[in-house]
């Protein structure tokens, strides 16, 4: 759209090697003022490496960076900031016990010994008005929602005069409505001549947010497209290197017996505050129940309560009719509950142990992996080889420490172990988070096949498309409460979005009609 002759930023022939991996292989990048560039690629394609080079966290082995036509050396994030480059990382870099204003000036090099916080607040208000980044400069970070925290991160960059903003998968933590607001913010900024680079692996976002898109595949730049002249299908093919099925084959399933029942379950979070309030639902065999919600609304606590990792404060949990409310994790494992945790490296796997050992971590308790308390290394290896093949886990050997595998392959190993051990209920928390198209497809297929085998699946996800494609029913959690349970065939992203923002199903406009008066329909 913006064919000004001078690019603000150029990266030429950037190459970066890590032991055993070529993370970036002569990658070129051009960014013009007023432009949003999407950087699209699978996990491990080299998007984050490239951006980390741009903000000075890594040094390139080869290649050069030019800012406004001048060759520059970026040794640290401070150098990058001085050049007007700033990045909003996936995990926010904010100090929770400090205010917004304090966070924004934190780390500024030209700060007076005693900063004039009132002046800082005034400037923040001014900037937040100009860019519609609504946030109270005097609020503490811990008081803010995730979406607001992201606004603070963006304000931080703008305050420092950033001309090039890098956003690393910014919509992962947002409701659809918040994502739309973010789009508006970017539009104002680009209208002023600022530019943005947007890391993502979601095609829809590329289409809505960007002007240009650059596709990376295995460290190499494989395509440059004008967004208006491409399609999600083409992008998916460019990214994966083959056609991707977007429609998964979801067979009709006969509902089995009730596997999981929650009777007004309440639980506290780590700080002792209510995290779940009287949550009630049940899941039958052959059914996937999806849980939607913005992160931090009780989803992780729900998974922990069901798997025995968190105490139930009130209510009852039944599995196949048996009361297992205060059961230990082991009792629940024995009752056939499997769990794909949100935190793969921290909880789901033991990084320093071999892939084979990690695969055996559920089955080691009995034959054939162990006999009378003694492990059978040969059987463990045999089992591991079978799992590695069946789930197409890419690992040099079964004895490689699992931390050397990519995120997608670690996730596949966890899935393999949990699916093999599952005998009733599968609790899957963000199972496809951060995975690329190929791995996501594999994970979803596995969950669907679990369902076809008559197992019950509790799927917690932040990806509404995913829930709509594979779940049978969807329920939305907001502030630890259930906003409603709807069959996925009868719901839309908009409806879910409203419920995620705290509007109970009962208060939504009637299904199918566009009646704007709330509270008129008994859902």
């Amino acid at each position, binding site marked *: 759209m913006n064919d000004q002759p001078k690019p603000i930023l150029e990266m030429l022939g950037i190459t970066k090697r890590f032991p055993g*991996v070529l993370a970036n292989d002569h990658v070129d990048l051009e960014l013009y003022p007023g432009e949003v560039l999407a950087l699209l690629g699978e996990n*491990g394609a080299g998007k984050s490496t490239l951006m980390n080079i741009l903000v000075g966290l890594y040094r390139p082995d080869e290649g050069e960076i030019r800012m406004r036509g001048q060759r520059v050396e970026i040794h640290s994030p401070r150098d990058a900031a001085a050049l007007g480059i700033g990045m909003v990382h996936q995990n926010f870099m904010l100090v929770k016990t400090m205010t917004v204003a304090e966070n924004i000036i934190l780390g500024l090099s030209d700060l007076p010994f005693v900063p004039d916080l009132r002046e800082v607040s005034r400037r923040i208000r001014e900037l937040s008005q100009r860019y519609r980044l609504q946030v109270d400069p005097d609020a503490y970070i811990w008081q803010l929602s995730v979406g607001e925290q992201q606004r603070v991160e963006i304000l931080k960059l703008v305050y420092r005069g950033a001309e090039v903003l890098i956003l690393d998968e910014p919509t992962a933590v947002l409701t659809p409505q918040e994502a739309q607001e973010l789009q508006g913010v970017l539009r104002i900024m680009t209208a002023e001549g600022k530019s943005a680079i947007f890391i993502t692996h979601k095609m829809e976002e590329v289409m809505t947010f960007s002007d240009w898109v650059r596709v990376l595949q295995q460290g190499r730049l494989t395509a440059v497209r004008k967004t208006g002249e491409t399609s999600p299908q083409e992008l998916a093919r460019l990214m994966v290197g083959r056609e991707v099925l977007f429609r998964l084959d979801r067979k009709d399933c006969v509902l089995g017996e009730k596997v999981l029942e929650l009777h007004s379950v309440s639980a506290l979070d780590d700080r002792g505050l209510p995290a779940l309030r009287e949550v009630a639902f049940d899941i039958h065999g052959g059914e996937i129940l999806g849980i939607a919600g913005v992160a931090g609304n009780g989803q992780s606590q729900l998974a922990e309560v069901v798997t025995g990792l968190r105490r139930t404060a009130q209510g009852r949990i039944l599995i196949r009719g048996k009361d297992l409310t205060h059961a230990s994790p082991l009792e629940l494992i024995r009752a056939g509950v499997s769990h794909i945790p949100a935190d793969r490296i921290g*909880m*789901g796997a033991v990084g320093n142990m071999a892939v084979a050992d990690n695969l055996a971590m559920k089955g080691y308790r009995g034959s054939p992996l162990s006999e009378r*308390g003694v492990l059978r290394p040969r059987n463990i290896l045999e089992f591991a080889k079978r799992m590695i093949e069946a789930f197409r886990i890419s690992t040099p050997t079964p004895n490689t420490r699992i931390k*050397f595998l990519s995120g997608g392959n670690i996730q596949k190993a966890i899935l393999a172990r949990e699916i093999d051990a599952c005998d009733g209920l599968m609790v899957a928390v963000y199972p496809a988070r951060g995975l690329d198209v*190929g791995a996501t497809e594999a994970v979803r297929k596995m969950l669907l096949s679990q369902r076809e085998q008559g197992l019950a699946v509790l799927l917690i996800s932040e990806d509404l498309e995913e829930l709509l494609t594979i779940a049978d029913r969807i329920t939305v959690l907001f502030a630890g409460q259930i906003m409603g349970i709807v069959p996925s065939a009868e719901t839309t992203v908009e409806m879910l979005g409203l419920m995620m923002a705290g509007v109970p199903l009962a208060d939504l406009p009637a299904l199918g009609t566009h009646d704007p008066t709330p509270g008129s329909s008994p859902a």
Partner: protein
Amino acid sequence: MRIVFEKRQSISRQALILVPVISFLVSLLLGAILLLISGANPLTTYAAMARGTFGSVYSLSETLVKAIPLMLTGLGVSIAFRMQFWNIGAEGQLVLGGVAAAWAALFLNGVIPDALLLPVAILVGMLAGAFWAGVPAGLKAYLGVDETLTSLMLNYVAILLASHLYYGPWRDPQGYGFPGTAQFPAAAWLPRLWGRAHWGLIFAVIAAALLWFILNRTRWGFELKIIGENKTAAHYLGINIARNVLLALLLSGALSGLAGACEVTGISRRLQQGLSIGYGYTAIIVAWMAQLNSFAVLFVAVLMGALLVGGDQVQMMMRLPASMGLVLQGMILFPMLAGSLFTEYRLRLIRREPATETPPATPVPGAEVQS
């Protein structure tokens, strides 16, 4: 050209052997400089140390006398450390093991058959050590009390209890006021192999093999490994962390207790002053230097035993001040500890010009394979 310090993807066997050897040579070099400064001939000093530690069957036995308690306590400490349980109470567990073994040797004599006296004394010693480790372990596992302080403070309790006993109620009436109990009956003497080297060596080797088997071949060991590596994962996998840590610590304490029992029945043959000379603390260094590997503990313990004996040699034969022996011990330890870094990391020289194509070597983090 640049020098890059990067983490090894897998620890090479070569490095595992080469690194300690080279570190040891560096240590000798550093020690030599120090000896030259203080006017001693490094070669003759080292020769004296070597002769005094490995030079004869007798000197080797003296080295082993020091090494055996280090092996047993080192093994005990390494199990605890694997659980990330900072047991610094091996000294107290050793002393209490010695006290309990002495009690059995002195007071069960004639009560139980002679043939059972030694086995019972050793068993009682192990139980006492286990109990002494079980106290901080139980407090930690069920009440969350920090183990570092409790295990450390229990050392003083055990040491003072022992000295109360040999100065007070258990003192040998015919001992001319010497602080110590009467000599144990011969039935409670731990047999010696040669010199003063005793059966404790056999116990230590068996213990190392047993530990290796437990950790690598049993279900329990598998759970212990998981707990040691990642407690969150262990909890998620349904492993009872509190009970397992407690059991591991009982085993840890039992080994230190065994060390104490062997000391009193094999060396002094009475409970007397000098039982607590810091083996339990040195064991912490032994365990770390051996990187918690049970067989490596045996070798490191021999090295440390040699350093202790060699330090005495420097003092006696070379007429250097006693502190020189200690300084040399430290000099030798530092490069060894620093060197262990190179088993995990390596230095790589990178030449700028020819774009050295890194072969996509086997483990490729980040390169996703589609399914």
